[in-house]
């Protein structure tokens, strides 16, 4: 049935998708053509999100038709059969039921359910049961209380909060496959324009994939309540051109630079508890409880997207994390102003 009408249906779907996209885009006031994307589920930029949006429109059309029919019936019966002053005291004909009518309104919904189910099952299979192709990028995403750890096992990269993946074109698809793990409570990885959400659950590894067809920054955030700062566990996915991605990979694979001017800050970092939680590649700091800082300055944000990565924000964050993100698990180290300045200048060398 789906196949028979597929061309008309497709036209229908596209029109409605466009309508939805424009309607929601008005609210989201999405900057067109800019490299930063919104979080509108009707503006998909990758195959899983696209198949979901198509199915959504199909379901919306069917439920829309049901709504119009039943709504019209309701309005009609409320208006047509309203009590009038002249029938005071008289009762209407007492009707107890009708087998034919009741059969009709049982069988039609059953048919609708069958159609909806088949359409749904097809898309579930198409998204969930895709085998991983050879050229895919592998990423292990680990949810932590209120930040994201990203590890690229084949490339030997560890980073945090800002995921870089290559754009994928139809001729040379380079999809990214994520393995989803959790270090503590449940989280959920949701970047609406790239894919539906999948949870990160301790002791229950999950998998998801995306093959973005547009470059730019795609935002999202943790969708499963994970504790006090669930709200500020933001996600940024940077979809890079092929050469940009390779350059990024090469830069991330390097160990941390050592600059003579930052030696004092490095001492403060290693003298305090910082290195128990944070790693800086090429130094003794190898903590894993907090984000890897080897290339901190390559990231646009700090504190899982809660603040921009500027000098002032960095200083404030190290001085008192609660000022930016109350409930964050990073403690305020009560550093002196001199130590604070030293450590910030050290951080600023970690490009």
């Amino acid at each position, binding site marked *: 049935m789906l196949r028979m009408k597929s061309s008309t249906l497709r036209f229908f779907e596209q029109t409605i998708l466009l309508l939805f996209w424009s309607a929601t885009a008005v609210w989201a006031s999405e900057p067109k053509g800019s490299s930063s994307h919104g979080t509108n589920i009707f503006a998909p930029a990758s195959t899983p999100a696209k198949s979901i949006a198509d199915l959504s429109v199909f379901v919306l059309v069917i439920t829309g038709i049901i709504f119009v029919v039943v709504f019209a019936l309701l309005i009609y019966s409320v208006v047509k059969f309203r009590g009038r002053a002249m029938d005071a005291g008289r009762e209407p004909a007492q009707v107890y039921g009708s087998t034919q009518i009741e059969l009709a309104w049982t069988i039609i919904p059953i048919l609708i359910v069958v159609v909806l189910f088949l359409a749904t099952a097809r898309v579930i299979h198409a998204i969930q049961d895709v085998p991983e192709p050879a050229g895919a990028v592998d990423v292990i995403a680990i949810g932590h209380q209120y930040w994201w750890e990203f590890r690229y096992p084949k490339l030997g990269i560890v980073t945090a909060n800002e995921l870089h993946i290559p754009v994928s074109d139809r001729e040379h698809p380079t999809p990214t496959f994520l393995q989803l793990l959790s270090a503590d409570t449940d989280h959920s990885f949701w970047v609406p324009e790239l894919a539906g959400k999948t949870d990160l659950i301790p002791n229950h590894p999950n998998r998801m994939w995306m093959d973005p067809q547009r470059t730019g920054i795609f935002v*999202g955030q943790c969708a499963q*309540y994970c504790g006090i700062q669930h709200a500020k566990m933001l996600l940024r996915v940077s979809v890079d051109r092929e050469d940009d991605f390779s350059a990024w990979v090469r830069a991330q694979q390097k160990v941390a630079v050592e600059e003579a001017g930052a030696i004092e800050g490095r001492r403060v970092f290693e003298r305090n508890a910082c290195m128990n939680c944070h790693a800086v590649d090429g130094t003794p700091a190898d903590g894993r409880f907090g984000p890897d800082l080897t290339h901190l300055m390559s990231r646009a944000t700090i504190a899982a997207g809660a603040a921009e990565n500027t000098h002032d924000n960095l200083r404030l964050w190290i001085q008192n994390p609660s000022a930016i993100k109350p409930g964050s698990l990073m403690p305020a180290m009560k550093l002196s102003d001199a130590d604070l300045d030293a450590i910030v200048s050290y951080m600023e060398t970690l490009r």
Partner: protein
Amino acid sequence: MSSNAITIPGTQIQARPWVDELHQWLTTVDHKRLGILYMLSALLFLVIGGVEALIIRIQLMHSHNNFVSPEVFNRMFTMHGTTMIFFVAMPVLFGFANYLVPLMIGARDMAFPRLNAFSFWLSFLGGLLLYFSFVGGSGLYGAGNAPDVGWWAYAPLGARAFSPGHSSDYWTLSLLVSGFGSIGTAINIIATILCMRCPGMKLGRMPLLAWLYLVQAGMVLIAITPLSAAQIMLLIDRYLGGHFFDTQAGGSAVLWMHFFWIFGHPEVYVLVIPAFAFLSEIIPVFSRKPIFGYPVMVAATVAIGLVSTSVWAHHMFSIGMNSYASSFFAITTMAVGIPTGIKIFNWIGTMWGGRIQFKVPMLFCIGFLFQFLIAGLTGIMQAAVPFDWQLTLSYFVVAHFHYVIVGGILFAIFGAFYYWYPKMTGRMLSETLGKWHFWLFLIGFHLTFDVMHIPGLLGMPRRIYTYEPGRGWDTLNFIITIGAFIQAIAILVFVANLIISYFKGAEAGNDPWDAWTLEWSTSSPPPAYNFATVPTVASRRPLWDLKHPEDPDSRYE
């Protein structure tokens, strides 16, 4: 049958001192008084849960708002959800069951009056225990705090590593205690309906309300038991070194999700079936026609009850189930739509050809029909699993289930209050205030929950205490908050109506709505023994037979 009160000549009933009166209420085993106690406790918690909702809405009014801290916000949504489900919706529905079931089947009380009282007090104390956490939640270490793990308390958030102190223990214990109360009441309802019907009232002649409560009580037994088991397992984890859900020791977070939703989804039907019951009584009376397709309505209810026990994992489509499991739960979930659709059509069939009187109870029922239709359709959207991968855990879901619970269940409960208040108190609720209540609440409801779908489509997750500007969520959230306040005003009108009409309402008489079921044959409020002589019935509408001896229903059975 019309005048059932026994008056003993020569006796003067003296006004008792208020202490005696209070003592009577606290020790009562009368099903009507217990019903009213259930409703009053539910109204108390409704106001508390409503204030929590308003705090949530003020905080989300615009981006980066600082009205409350994240800790307080998380406690508010946890307490709001827990309170509204367990200490408002369940008690008020049990209250109506208590009050109405014996009266409608011609019985003098519930089957086990003392179990009834015990169950009520367990439920009520469960509510007090939950709120005691504000005082005692941190144990000996200082000021209290309320649980902040969300109303599902997903593992491992409820484990001691992530929930130190005792706040989540109060959550666990209060649900455990009130759960036992619910089980007691469910057993009582089943026993009453099966064993206490008056002569002539065969199962096929029971008012639909009794049938629906029979199914609902059966589902309470199915739903509450796994929840109580899970709470006990959680307590074992927290205090006896168990590892059921403790993921750091190899426990399973997914196991808790299954346990919770095996309770959680049937629970939705535990709440909505009584709402169906109210509609099935109110719509016929105000359409002046019998319910359309009684046997099909019963069959559809039983079907909903059965199918709804195998849909729970549709709350968990994002946890990474395999595609076969996802498909199974998709089709069962869509299948529930079929009997539910039959019900909506049968209610329309009841109105079709009738003479609809737009009294306040009927207005709320018509509101229910519109809103429940939309709630059902957004439910179908979420049964389409890939669509749900986008919708679940977003504000779209929050809008959807509030559409079910507020737009559906709460509207039906308001209808029931306006319909049966005259029976309970002997006074009519004011129609004028009732219409203000209805229209204000309708406007507030749609302003809040229609708009709330959109931020979900725009990627706004639920349970966040604040959000970034520039996502397109600000204006929408502001409108939602305005709607919430309009609803709050409507609730105040309702409470004022309940109080004012109790003292100044018009006398109701036995049968103000010209209705057909047995509760309207006795005085308002009914005497403690309900019926001076136990009635005998010959059809589904005994009072119709009495009022229309020339054309009784019993002739067609």
